[in-house]
């Protein structure tokens, strides 16, 4: 077996065994079917709800909110993160605000945002945005600070000044950290968004799970949770596919290390 096949086997052996145990034990009626539905039934339910039920609409809505929240968080977060990593005054200006709001559970701001933006899309998008925004500020700031000082000096000594400093030196230098920060930012956007939908929305993946829970539709609850997990995996996968295209100069090992960070 080649090393990569072996690694793949190691990565998937336990998950597959777990899934197989779930499937057979529920089919055999060893677990209470009211709480533990058959695995393949969950998948059938998921597909059926996606195609025929409301789940498709819920999913599209969640994805729309996610994209808006993430786009906003990425643009503003990177800009503020770079500025505060680069200039001490900016850093001191925003530090108390990021220190206070970064650890604040953004879900607690949902009521406030509903007051400000009404019960429409705005409140959910902004709640998700707030999570990713602070995450991206902090990781971008960290990447800027971590650029080796001799690289900055080399850039200046070889004439990368003014806007060139940013386009030809700083952004390429922070690109790996930036990408990792964006990945984390998008994942946290998704987590908060689905949680906010669960708590207060009428539509969306989270709202669907809440609804199904209230109706004791166990299979639909599971189907929703599985979809949430799949969305998270897709985000990671997307960034893993994009990274070698954006950063062709990175050593494969570095890339893997960047992708493994939790």
């Amino acid at each position, binding site marked *: 077996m080649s090393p990569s096949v072996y690694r793949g086997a*190691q*990565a*998937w*052996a*336990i*998950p597959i065994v*777990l899934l197989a145990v779930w499937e057979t034990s529920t089919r055999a009626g060893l677990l209470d079917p*009211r*709480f533990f539905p058959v695995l393949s039934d969950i998948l059938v339910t998921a597909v059926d709800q996606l195609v025929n039920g409301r789940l498709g609409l819920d999913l599209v809505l969640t994805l729309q909110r996610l994209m808006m929240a993430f786009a906003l968080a990425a643009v503003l977060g990177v800009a503020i993160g770079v500025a505060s990593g680069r200039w001490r*005054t900016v850093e*001191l*200006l925003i*530090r*108390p*605000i990021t*220190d*206070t*709001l*970064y*650890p*604040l*559970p953004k*879900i*607690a*701001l*949902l*009521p*406030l945002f*509903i*007051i*400000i933006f009404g019960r429409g899309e705005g409140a959910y998008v902004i709640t998700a945005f707030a999570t990713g925004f602070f995450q991206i500020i902090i990781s971008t700031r960290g990447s800027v600070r971590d650029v080796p000082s001799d690289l900055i000096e080399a850039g200046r000594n070889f004439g990368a000044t003014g806007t060139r400093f940013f386009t030809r030196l700083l952004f390429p230098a922070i690109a790996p950290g930036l990408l990792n920060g964006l990945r984390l930012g998008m*994942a946290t956007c*998704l*987590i*908060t968004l*689905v*949680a906010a939908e*669960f*708590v207060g929305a009428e539509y969306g993946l*989270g709202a669907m*799970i*809440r609804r*199904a*829970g*209230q109706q*004791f539709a*166990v299979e639909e*609850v*599971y189907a*929703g*949770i599985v979809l*949430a*997990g799949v*969305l*998270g*995996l897709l*985000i*990671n996968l997307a960034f893993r596919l994009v990274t070698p295209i954006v950063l062709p100069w990175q050593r494969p090992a570095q890339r893997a290390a960047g992708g493994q*960070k*939790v």
Partner: protein
Amino acid sequence: MRRALGEKWPLFVGPVFILLTWELLSRADVIRPTFFPPPTEILIRAGIIFDAGSGMGGDIIATLLRVLATIFFAVLIGVALGIAITASQWMERGTNTVLAFLYPIPGVLFFPFLTFLLGRTEMAIILTALVTPLIVMVLYTVAGVRSIDRTLLEVADNYGADGARRFFGILVPGALPSIVTGIRVSLGFTLIAVIAIEMVGASNGLGQFLWSNWQILRVTDMYVALLIIAVLGLLSSVGFDAVADRMLPWRRDVQGAQT
């Protein structure tokens, strides 16, 4: 590096500017004081924390206890599990796949399922809150064990450290910096999960206080709850760092890889 306070003036500009603008706009009725009461009024209203009649003291304690119980179990189970699975590559890689799938799922989504099983009990709340912090603790513990110098492990083997001695003498202290960082991250997730669960499914706690006061539009009380949650957030991050740095002065040197 110590700097004169004179150079740190921008630290105060942001908060002072925001609070002052808010205060003035609210007092001048530019923004509706029903929804955005002036900060001074919120601060005065914060006195209800100590008013037994409001019941808010009890809510704070309920949230605190839930957070502490969750983080306690997350650390206990997470560290043990994390170290155990490093014994086998099959276990470690396999668990990694499972956790990579579970990690981005908001823990609160497991609440309906756990209430099916356990009813609307404290147990259901804590188990729900436990999901994400537990995953975090396992991941950081594994990363911590992986960060231990291989030669150190070889030395331990060579000198016959095995069983409990290997566990408590080498693995736990070696992984400690990463574990401590994991606890900090877990605390953040615990607070999020507990507040979110309280908002939808608890009869007390800060999240419940926040949500119910918002629904009857007692907005000032909602802000008081937000203020306290923000303080808890600060304690879980900046406060935690201050304590951890004092207890493990070398933590900052080694944690780099995980942050």
